[in-house]
């Protein structure tokens, strides 16, 4: 089996009005949890649709499991959760799930057994109530989301593709999704998901790719990405935010390149030639009460801001989620 589950080489897609994806290459190792990060409109969904062969790229090649992604046999090994979700509203939950399983080549009998297991596991089938017999539109939004997860995973795919999986999820389902991703990882499945929420990505992903305006900004394992941008970051916590010197020192461009200000906590990116010792000394000399001063690796969020910058914010970037 190929070492990489997904290999995208020099892929481009242009629409009448704009370029959605430009010369994108990325590789997702088998068994990885891979994050596709970028502001809204960066080309994440287009990339995912090209991966799934829903739309065809204008140029470049895409291989999945070592096969061209146009090979119909690979679709049975992929599970997909689209960004905007919905199901046949008038259909019974069990019948919808059986249909989705059959589309992935799972025989109805096998599917039925798995459906029951999943419904029980996600509390949709309890001693009091079996929601499997209800119609979709009798379910709450949260329950419908659960049904959609089940539909994505019912055929036990080797590659799971999730487009903005966390958007619109209630906290309980978000937790269930995280647990599921971890479990898939433990079973050596490959998971790729797009998100604009850096916190989730930082905690879940082995590797990431940041794209903006249809182009790759950077990619690699989270560890290596952080190392590359590492050790120029300082985590600073102060006791008294209102101390006048704090603002003055942090605004000194010879010392500090950028600050992510969270009131009592600052994530600081040092200026290229600045010495962290100088920064610490100046703060101490000014009499600022310091709770924490630590050389850290930057957060993905920080890296994202640095790389995509203000233009990303302009285009709808929404920072911490």
């Amino acid at each position, binding site marked *: 089996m190929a070492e990489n589950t997904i290999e995208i080489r020099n892929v481009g897609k242009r629409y009448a009005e704009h370029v959605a994806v430009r010369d994108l290459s990325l590789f997702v190792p088998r068994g990885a949890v891979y994050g596709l990060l970028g502001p809204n409109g960066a080309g994440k969904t287009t990339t995912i649709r090209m991966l799934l062969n829903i739309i065809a790229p204008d140029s470049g090649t895409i291989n999945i499991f070592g096969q061209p992604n146009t090979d119909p046999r690979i679709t049975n090994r992929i599970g997909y959760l689209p960004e905007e979700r919905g199901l046949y509203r008038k259909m019974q939950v069990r019948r919808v799930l059986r249909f989705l399983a*059959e589309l992935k080549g799972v025989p109805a009998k096998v599917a039925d057994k798995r459906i029951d297991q999943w419904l029980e596991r996600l509390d949709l089938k309890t001693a009091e109530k079996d929601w499997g017999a209800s119609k979709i539109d009798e379910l709450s939004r949260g329950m419908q989301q659960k049904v959609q997860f089940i539909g994505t995973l019912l055929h036990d795919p080797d590659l799971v593709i999730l487009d903005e999986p966390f958007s619109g999820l209630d906290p309980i389902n978000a937790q269930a999704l995280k647990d599921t991703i971890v479990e898939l990882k433990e079973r050596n499945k490959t998971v790729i998901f797009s998100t604009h929420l850096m916190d989730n990505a930082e905690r879940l992903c082995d590797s990431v790719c940041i794209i903006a305006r249809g182009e790759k900004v950077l990619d690699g394992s989270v560890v290596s990405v952080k190392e590359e941008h590492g050790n120029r970051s300082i985590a600073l916590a102060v006791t008294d935010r209102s101390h006048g010197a704090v603002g003055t020192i942090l605004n000194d461009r010879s010392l500090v390149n950028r600050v992510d200000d969270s009131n009592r906590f600052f994530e600081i990116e040092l200026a290229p030639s600045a010495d962290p010792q100088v920064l610490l000394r100046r703060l101490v000399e000014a009499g600022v009460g310091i709770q924490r001063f630590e050389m850290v690796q930057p957060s993905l969020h920080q890296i994202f801001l640095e790389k995509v910058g203000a233009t990303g914010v302009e285009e709808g970037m929404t920072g911490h989620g």
Partner: protein
Amino acid sequence: MAKLWAIIKREYLERVRSKWFVIATMFGPIIMGALVIVPAYITAKSKSTEAIFNSTILDATTTGIGDRISLAIVGNNPKATVRPKVIVVPPSALSQAESTATRDVVERRLNGYIVLDQQTLAGERARYAGRSATSIPDMERVRSAIRQTIVAMRLEKAGVNPDSIKELTFMPLSLSSERITDKGRGGSGTVSIIFAAAIAFLLYMSIVLYGQNVLRGVLEEKTNRVAEVVVSSVPPETLLAGKVIGVGGVGLTQQVIWALTTFAMMKARAPIMEKMGLTAAPFSMPDIGWGTAVLLVVFFVLGFTFYAALYAAAGSAVNTEQEAQQVVQPLILMLVGTAVFIQPILVNPGSRMAQIMSWMPFSAPIIMPLRLSMTSVPPLEIALTLLGLVAACFGAVWVASRIYRVGLLMYGKKPTLREMARWVTYSR
């Protein structure tokens, strides 16, 4: 293939299970039954009944003819327990007797009365007044009883043997009519027109209803975003094909159920009506052979495919039902344009216009079956029409599938026809 089957199965079962389908399917036979039995029941109710026997004959002829007429009215009807009572009145007291009888009728002691006078004897006029005046069979019974009796009396006067008179005058003649057309004798004339109109209308209705149904299905999948999940598992063309076949199967199922129940009802009609105490008027279905029946199905399948594919394309291109109504206008135009020709072609199925309309792929699925059930169409003409229709189907499906796969993932504003035409040339 298994996936196509899964899609067909879903489209078919979800629709057949719906209340809408069950109601519509039951509605057909119920209407059919009502059309067959109710009119017969109503005519039978007004058929010559016992009521007419409970009348009075006011005999002002002074010849004693009243008694004979009373017997003639009853005839050999087994239901008659009474026979019209005869009151012999002198001509001068007739108006007095009539007022009395009228009051009796008003107060429901009497059904009605028959007045016999000199004019009756002359064979010119008799009168009836009463509650059965609107019943054509009752009046016919009274009229022929009087006629028969007067003819008999005249014959007696002429010296004919009384025994042979009854034989000579008795004739329960009924007249049945049959139509001869260009094609020759062919069942009852009106029945074959009704049948042809019913077929054309059924095809038209099914194509419109189930075409709209396909459109709504596509639109639902698009707005739900289920389409995206499905086309990540199968090519959009497969989804389109599954949908058209599944929905078409539903339409076909409904029509087969309708055809079978209609057939069964025609068979069971006489026994059922007998149970209700009615006699079934003779009624024969036009004789359509298996060949024609198969052709009808083929025309439905092709016509449905042609329109359903285009409806699906329309559904994929838009985002709301309102937009859909605008986009399908060209389709509606083709269908309604065909429907307005049904009536003139029914009147004159051999006309040049009928021929041309039955050749055009967009109207052939409706007009050709209509012609087939009314006149004989040369096999070569049928074959060429089918060929054209099949070609048109391929064209429609090809265009539709290309619009469909682009449209399914396009959200936002409604595309113009020009934009949709451009989608056909997109690679994907």
